[in-house]
């Protein structure tokens, strides 16, 4: 029973990868012959490559913004005890709860009013909002395990507040910050709902192009694009696990 459920979870992902090596020009499973022709097509098609590059650029910016905002917020929440703390937490955490279609509409209206539809930087900012809660949760967890007396010790020894944070606090949070940043990157890299509303034909990300392709032509080139998405996300996941293990070991010392 458990084996069946695990197979149910993994098989569709594997099938996309297998399908990308299809030997014919239509979707067929089981495969009718193996070939790399769809990889050649993908790599020879500037529009797929541009879409991949655009996704990466947007995701990088979104992840950077989310990481800075989320990390600062997590530290602030851990050290601030004044009024409005729960309200601040609710605001920072809530994007995880809000249905993506609601966010998509909100940004569509906002971008339409401000003439920002199709501007990649604006899309990146919208995506960073979706990444903030993950960074916040990840860094907050690490802060709870941190001994606050270390900060006090550094301050007593004469370090300024900026220096304390940079040299004492941040290094101990490194793996949590990295995990949050990677997750924020992945969310932005394969986001597929908001982009349908705000890409405006100018900012065709990989997910947007995939969506159009699934809707209108369903070719095996799609499977190649899907495989690229799978590989990027799984590679980042393994990276975050490895980095977490490595940095975690260093932090414990």
């Amino acid at each position, binding site marked *: *029973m*458990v084996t069946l*459920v*695990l197979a149910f*979870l*993994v098989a*569709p*992902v594997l*099938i*996309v990868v297998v399908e990308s090596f299809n030997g014919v020009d239509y979707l*067929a*499973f*089981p495969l009718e012959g193996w070939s790399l022709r769809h990889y050649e097509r993908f790599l020879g098609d500037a529009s797929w490559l541009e879409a991949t590059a655009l996704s990466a650029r947007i995701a990088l910016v979104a992840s950077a913004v989310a990481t800075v*905002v989320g990390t*600062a*917020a997590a*530290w*602030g*929440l851990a*050290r601030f*005890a*004044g009024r409005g*703390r*729960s309200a*601040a937490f609710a*605001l*920072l*955490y809530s*994007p995880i*709860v809000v*249905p993506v*279609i*609601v*966010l*998509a*509409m*909100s940004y569509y*209206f*906002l971008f339409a009013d401000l003439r920002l539809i199709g501007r990649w930087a604006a899309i990146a900012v919208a995506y960073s*909002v979706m990444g903030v809660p*993950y960074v916040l*949760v*990840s860094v907050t*967890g690490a802060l*709870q395990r941190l001994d*606050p007396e270390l900060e*006090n010790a550094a*301050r007593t020894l004469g370090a300024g507040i900026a220096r304390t944070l940079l040299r004492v606090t941040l290094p101990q949070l490194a793996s949590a910050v990295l995990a949050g940043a990677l*997750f924020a990157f992945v969310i932005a890299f*394969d986001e*597929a*709902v908001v982009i349908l509303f705000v890409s405006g034909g100018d900012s065709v990300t990989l997910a947007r192009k*995939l*969506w159009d392709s*699934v809707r209108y032509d369903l070719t095996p080139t799609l499977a190649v694009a899907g495989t690229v998405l*799978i590989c990027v*996300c*799984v590679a980042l*996941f393994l990276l975050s696990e490895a980095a*977490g293990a490595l940095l975690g070991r260093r932090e414990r010392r």
Partner: protein
Amino acid sequence: MTTRTPAPGPPRGGPGGERRRRGRPRLRRPAFAAVALGLPVAVMLAVYAWPVGAMLVRSVTEPEPGLSNLVRAVTDPTILHVLWVTVRMAAEVAVVSVLLGFPVAYFLATSPPRRARVLLLLVVIPFWTSVLVRSFAWIVLLGDGGLVTRLLHPLTGDGRGLLYGEGAVVVALTHILLPFPVLIIKAALDRIDGSLTRAARTLGAGPLRAFALVYLPLAAPATAGGGVLVFVIGLGFYVTPALVGGPKESTIAVVIARSVQETFDWGMAATLATLLLLLAVGLALAVRRLTAVKGAVAP
């Protein structure tokens, strides 16, 4: 971070009053913490709360001020039908996900740690894979001539696929959302003290009885929490119903998208979005209560 599930509540701790009295306040300078928190809050107000708030306002101002959209939403039979279909499919997905997810979580929680880590990858890797790609996989599998269609051929007797039907949406959505209950339930089962069931056994309970009366009640809140979470996410899902479902499987999200992009009925779209948002936030708060400490929502 995927295997951890940190707390969704505000982190505890903050300047301790006692400590402040004892010595000079060092780093715990409230002003600096207030800035560290205030700047992110300001950013989020500007790029998140403002657009969402403005969108919500549209539900009562467009096309004219008043509650006309809401009245239309709860009286129009087409929209009521869409609401019903959405709730029904989300509930089906939630029930199936919990029924499939619990045994897996139990198996992972009771496996030796090393094996559990490897098997956990099989849950987490699909979880990290794009929803779009996973929906596409189901189009391949469930379409005419797809693998599942062929395997089911002796049962169904025809070569027509399940694609573009409610069955397809439920199967694909279950596949996409199943990792949530598995990870949440597993996190809860990991914390259950094994000596409790052993004690029940020692006191004369059979294995089934010990499981049903001791283990299950301890696992119940997280299991329910996982189910509600799947239900909430399922309610607002757009990509999968739009790609794998047919016109009869239009969900709230699909209708919202159509109202925005095709019929330009922005007031109605905003009203449906408001209803969806209220439902999601209300249920998310319920999940938080059910799962008490752990951050069910964070993958």
